[in-house]
């Protein structure tokens, strides 16, 4: 009888051991990948024209992407064409890395809803794109709500134009700009019935914590690009997600060329 119990326990424990290890590393042979150029350019009023251009990588290729050094790049606005030569030296205050930029005297003007045209020539092939800068939408107020565990949620209120289709991004940084991003929402105003809009997230903050909220008023192409990036990232790892390709607004190149405007407000919770 003791033996029978022992065998039964052995069987049960074997079964339990076999339940483990649902996930394992495997080798996948991917087909050869053509390293399509990748470009990221944000037109920020008052800042020089600048962008990042490099070759995208095969999925299991090396870690460091190869910059494209010999591209001929210009941005045209109100008939004025500004060249962006290769220049990868970082400047003070740069949050992003750029390898093409205009001279420091050529700044992006505050011309809302007017066309900026991009031309990129790589190995004799020219790629074009066009975008605008959206008017800043200001943050009306920030308010907090804390629970009995001293965890707080933060909500932002702003006014949405009722007669236009607008796209927003809402980032909440912990402590200061450049701190941890605690919340990141991308949304369009199709959901909103009222002019006054409120967005609230979860209880991600400690009572007394300092936060900075940045509200972007985005172009449609920027919104579409970010949504496709999210979808593409979600499709990798989610068996129920729809496969997604990146929605670039530069035909022939992966990437985004867009204006960038935002309003900041900080709040200590």
């Amino acid at each position, binding site marked *: 009888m003791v033996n029978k119990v022992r065998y039964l326990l052995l069987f049960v424990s074997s079964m339990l051991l076999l339940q483990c290890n649902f996930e394992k590393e495997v080798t996948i042979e991917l087909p050869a990948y053509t390293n399509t150029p990748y470009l990221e350019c944000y037109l920020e009023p008052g800042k020089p024209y600048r962008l990042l251009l490099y070759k995208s990588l095969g999925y299991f290729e090396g870690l460091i992407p190869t910059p494209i050094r010999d591209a001929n790049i210009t941005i045209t606005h109100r008939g004025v064409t500004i060249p962006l030569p290769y220049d990868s030296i970082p400047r003070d205050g740069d949050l992003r890395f750029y390898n093409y930029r205009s001279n420091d005297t050529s700044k992006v003007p505050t011309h809302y809803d007017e066309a900026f045209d991009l031309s990129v020539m790589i190995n004799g092939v020219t790629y074009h794109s066009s975008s605008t800068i959206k008017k800043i939408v200001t943050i009306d107020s920030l308010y907090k709500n804390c629970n009995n*565990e001293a965890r707080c949620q933060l909500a932002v*209120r702003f006014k949405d134009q009722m007669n236009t289709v607008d796209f927003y991004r809402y980032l909440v940084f912990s402590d200061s700009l450049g701190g941890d991003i605690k919340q990141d929402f991308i949304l369009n105003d199709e959901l909103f019935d009222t002019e006054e809009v409120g967005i609230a997230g979860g209880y991600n903050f400690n009572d007394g914590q300092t936060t900075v909220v940045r509200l972007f008023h985005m172009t449609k192409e920027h919104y579409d690009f970010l949504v496709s990036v999210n979808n593409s990232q979600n499709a990798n790892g989610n*068996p129920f997600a*729809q496969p997604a390709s990146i929605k670039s607004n530069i035909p022939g190149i992966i990437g985004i060329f867009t204006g960038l405007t935002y309003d900041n407000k900080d709040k200590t919770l």
Partner: protein
Amino acid sequence: MVWTCVCYLFILLSQESNAQSERIEGIIKDHSDSSAMIGAVVHLRNNKSIGTTTDQDGHFVLDHVASNDVLIIENIGYATVEIPVDQLTPHLNIYLKSIARDEVIVEGNPYKDRLESTQMSTITLTSKEAKLLPALFGEVDLLKTLQLKPGIQSGGEGSSGLYVRGGGADQNLFLLDGITVYNPSHLFGFFSVFNADAVKSITLYKGGFPAMYGGRLSSVVDVHTNKGDSSSYTVNGGIGLISSRLAVEGPIVKGKLWGTIAVRRTYADIFTRALNKSQEGKPDYDPIPDYYFYDANLQLTYKINNKNHLHLTGYFGKDVFKFKNNNNTLGFQWGNALAGVSWVSNIDSATTMTTTLSVSDYRYKLKNELPSFSFSLTSGIRDYAASSHLKKVYRKHTFQTGIQLSRYAFTISRLQAGSSDGKVQFSNGTALYGTGGGIYVSDEFNWRARWIINAGLRWSWFYREKFFQGLEPRLQVNYRLKERISIKASYSRMFQYIHLANNSGASLPTDIWYPSGTTPAPQRSDQVALGYEFSFLGNKLFFSNEYYYKYMKSVLDFRDGAQLFVNDSLQREFVFGKGESYGAEFYLEKKQGKTTGWIGYTLSWTNRQFAEINQGNWFPARYDRRHDLSVVVMHKLNSRFSFSGTFVYGTGQAVSLPIGRFYLQDVDGVRPTTVPIYTERNAFRLPAYHRMDVGVVYRFKPKWGEADLTLSIYNVYNRRNTYFIYFEEIKDENDIPVRYVAKQVALFPIIPTLTFNFKW
């Protein structure tokens, strides 16, 4: 062992008198509820070469019957009926006491009816057969058993979703006693809503569709419920690993009103709630969400007189997911509710009319409440339907005609949200309505000695924004090459006017039905099939081989990255294209003897083409499966022990994997993220899927009734079948990527389960 319960056969027989040799024709019904008895074996005592099985209407025909022979009718679980042929009279009623199913010995040719029928591409499965096979978590699931037949694939590991001859999960029509079921799944598709205790049989049509069916491109799954016993009470039940079930049937007014009720419920939530309570207050403990599902089936039959019955069918099922902590209350519920009443009138032994009124509703509701903010999201479909079908057997003709009408109401992503102070409110959502229907006529008749032809025509229509209509010709031909060999061919056209927004291999509760209109247009399929079938080795074995080609027009898919959740403008996410599926199916079956089972093999191709996807090039559908093999064996060792085993093998699913990547700096530039680049749709294959399950049933012999202990071992050799593959970025301690790897995820390891079943 004789059951203490009593079941009866109600047999309506008619005969065409002929001195020495005559034709016997009739309908066999379960006396308890007057429901048609499908698959009953009808044969003769002396002339063993003559025999058949009843069709889905309980109908049979025997030719060349000698007047001095004895007619024998057998069915598992019912008493064998023996009637001298010369004593047969029209409208003969016979009441018999049943015996235990173990004691039934089936003789004759159980395949004769199939060989004589024009119907091809059809599978009939009884609940009793399904209960003999091993099951995941011990939950007998008829839809999963259907997946073991050729031409039918699952959506993935453990899923009860059906992909029939290259059709999508949205292209199956599920009918419960003629009432449409819009989401046939519990627990994200791992279990079907059809409780094996409540179901008598399922017939699945994958081609050669009878004219009475329409509305979906790829299959019709016609589920017939158990109507209950009119004279005595029976209690069925089972206690399993994840759920328990109970079914009670019997008379309410003896001989006049009877019925059955079957319920089941999972109970993992009872344990998780207890665990959550015991850990309450611990700072690092995250409560486990509650999850359970339940369903209830109700059947009532009212006997107006010997020729007229009213049947009431009801189903209510719900999946409930709840999560609550200090800050957040999340509730997610989904389920079907349907009800219908049918008037079945046996005008005479050769004429039956069935008229049904029904309503079917499916919806899900997601609700989230925060202290100062809340939202709820609802989607669903409701249909009100009326139908009437008439069947008349006259000489060598079987006429059928009918009319169907449905009114649909769709709720598309109705979102309501706002702050508790009422200052911020927003809402979203669309309500759509449509009306559709169909009229059909068909005739099955013998032409010359060897030909049987079933020709039908269906006219279907749908109205929302625009009026759509189409003619759907149906043709099935059987050429009896020899008594035991038939060659069959069929052609069917089907229209589908409502569409399911589903883009995964799983049946998700958030899948939304959407009607045709200005967009999307109705889908259409044309299918041809050719095959042959024969019985051999003294009718011990049956073999069939079918070849099919299906072309689909205006099939739906979704643009890359489509947002199907919280989207009331789904029409903007649809893309329209074409599809084709073709292949060969091989099926070998043994129905008699101590060892029974089947082997099914399918070789197939399924492709899609959309202008907006994959640069407009053809690509394999997710469920394109080159090879699909299933082996099912059941062996009855003695009156106490029986064993069963299944083995399945299938080519891996077609999937999309990224082949490139880039770093997105994004607007803050502080934390670049890796973004995968997808190119070709479904260009990769998961590893081949294979699995073996085994089951052992030990039958007790209690004085009070029947009981058994069923051991099911799912995935007995613990194969790690790939559910999906993803690519992972491996980072160092400074959060810097150091390498990229591919990982595969498996779902179910070996799972042994014990289930106790009883019948009293």
